[in-house]
């Protein structure tokens, strides 16, 4: 699930660019280095009931990622995300840890401007490439190639305010058990006072697979669903650098971890 959360964060970050410079712009680049911490000591069972892991058991991850978007044209952006993840999974008193590159993502975002260039429909096609192999536990993910198709609609309901609604479909295709994932995301953000930004996000994923089992290593679960809320605050400190702090928490789920986390990231616009 952490992978899903990472993906959701990635989408969330991507959406944040809307506020000032979106689409990225021809020959312009946006970089978003991110650190995310996630911890879970409970889980939603197959009926959605919250149950604690065993005494002392938990799942935790630290993820560093670099998101890169470059405007190939006015409407077409190249997007790349490269995560490096360290996971720690403790089950029945046995703790296992592993670190390495996770699922890299590379794709294209195509923007369709609507009314007066102030509303956009954006479609995305992203290829998922695992940069690891599942040889020794704990695994860093499905170790499966995949693709994601997503579309969002964004607009400014009020001055200095934006709203984005997004739907996505992700398919991992190296194994017959997939999974297939459907995602949604609603983000609303605004600027207040002098270059302070705040945004709220509600997002979720429904992941379905013939592989129904639950593992305390949340990265390898395939059949689950969850929803989470997040709140982010940022402040522009330099012409082209806006650091953010973000907190998130899972609010519902099935066969998924109950967890909280925090991210630190910065949106860097070049030049």
């Amino acid at each position, binding site marked *: 699930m952490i992978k899903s959360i990472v993906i959701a964060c990635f989408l969330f970050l991507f959406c944040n660019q809307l506020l000032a*410079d979106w689409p990225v*712009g021809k*020959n312009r680049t946006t970089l978003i280095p991110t650190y995310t911490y996630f911890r879970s000591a409970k889980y939603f069972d197959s009926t959605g009931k919250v149950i604690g892991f065993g005494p002392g058991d938990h799942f935790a991850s630290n993820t560093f990622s670099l998101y890169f978007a470059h405007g190939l044209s006015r409407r077409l952006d190249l997007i790349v995300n490269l995560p490096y993840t360290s996971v720690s999974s403790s089950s029945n008193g046995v703790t296992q840890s592993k670190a390495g590159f996770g699922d890299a993502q590379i794709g294209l975002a195509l923007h369709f401007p609507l009314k*007066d*260039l102030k509303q956009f429909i954006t479609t995305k096609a992203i290829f998922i490439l695992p940069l690891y192999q599942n040889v020794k536990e704990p695994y860093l993910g499905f170790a499966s190639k995949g693709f994601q198709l997503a579309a969002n609609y964004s607009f400014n309901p009020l001055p200095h305010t934006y709203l984005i609604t997004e739907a996505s479909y992700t398919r991992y295709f190296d194994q017959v058990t997939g999974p297939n994932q459907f995602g949604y995301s609603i983000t609303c953000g605004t600027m207040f006072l*002098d270059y302070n930004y705040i945004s709220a996000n509600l997002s979720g994923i429904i992941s379905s697979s013939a592989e129904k089992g639950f593992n305390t290593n949340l990265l390898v679960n395939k059949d689950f669903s969850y929803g989470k809320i997040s709140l982010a605050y940022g402040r522009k*400190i*330099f*012409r082209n650098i806006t650091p953010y702090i973000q907190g998130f928490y899972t609010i519902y789920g099935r066969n998924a971890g109950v967890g909280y986390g925090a991210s630190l990231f910065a949106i860097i616009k070049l*030049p």
Partner: protein
Amino acid sequence: MRKLLFLICLCLSFVISKNTYAAVFDFHEVSDSKNPKNNQEPETVVVNIIPHQKNGLFDAKHPVKYNVEVFNNYRTPQDGKISVEVRNITGSIVGISEVDFNVKANNKKMVEWKIPVENPGFYDIIVKINLTEYDDTIRNVFGYKPFEIATPLHKPADFDVFWQKAKDDLHAVNPEYRITPDDILSTPTHQVYLVEMNSLDNVKIYGWLTIPRAKGKYPVLYGLGGYKVEMKPLFFDDFAHFTINVRGIGESNHVINPDNQEILTLHLEDKNKYAYRGIYMDCVRGMDFLLANEKMGLDISRIGLFGGSQGGTLTWIVAGLTQKAIFCVLDNPTFCDFHTNFDICVNRQQPEAGFIIKFLKEFLRRNGNISKEKMLTTLSYFEAQNFISDVKCPSLVGIGLLDLMAPPTCTLSTYNRLNTDLKKKSEFFSFPDMAHEVPMEHNTFKSTWFYEGAVKKLSK
């Protein structure tokens, strides 16, 4: 006998005119259907003329075609005629086509006209509709092979010497920049400065500099103003903004123009005293100010120019005279080609012919000893098309095709003189339903250009 001759002449002229014009346009009915707006009050007829090319620009691959759409909201049929008349820029008729027309009660009908024109240029298309209970005349403008338009160039032999002397005179004046923070106009996100400086002939001018408070070195958008428009600070998140109020605006008007004459013709009798020699130099002084104040957080290798109307012209003038800008974003630039502008507007009775030619005609009337040719010779030192070969940065140009203050012919002729490489990097947009304005979407698009333009730095 004389009556007979008159009748023969009349018949001949009718036949000739019929042959000349009837063959020019091809007309056919496209649709005849129930009016979706039927039974609306008040009863009326609504006529729309729609160019097949959305931007009103045609070429050999896209022949000139127009749809005329007639909505009849009357509860009675409307019978009569529709005529389509095409005129060139000086008002001469290129062709006329008239057809019988009828539309049933509460119906709409659309007819299509093909209009064969051969010569590159802009043309007026005038649709006259005379029906049982409704008459109307609608004017639209289209361009044919607009990127081949080239009006005669009237560049004086000493043009470069004239402007080099002006720049030398300007640079002999100590600018004495005075930069004062303005706490009233400043905001939590932007610091605004009042900037005062001395320009040509020691005339004191002022402008506004706005810099975002977040630290960093900001690309600059230098905004240039329309005719007698007092410029105010603008606020951009990712750019510093600077604008100059040239002589004739604010206190400087009392100094240079105590009789408060029309600035367009102030001292027009002498090119060395003409107000616009000073106005152009004021804009150059504004660029001097930016280049001298990098330490305020300005990225002087990335200065973009923008403006509309006279401000549009000034972007090209400043770009040509300083060669320190990385892009020009301009709408409906006036003063591109005074000669052609005069020819286009001088015989038009329409009020929209605008103030430029009106004021020039008044100037000629007041100064009987100055011929039109002499006046235009002086103005040729000040028209944008003579500066355009010195512009070294790409341009985004937007124009309204109905504009008589900045006629499309003059703008295109100037734009077409950008060098080939620059034209590839430049973009041109036209709006057939607009006069001296551009639509909101284009205004939003300009910000795209600001960001794209600021990617590159000025090459040294």
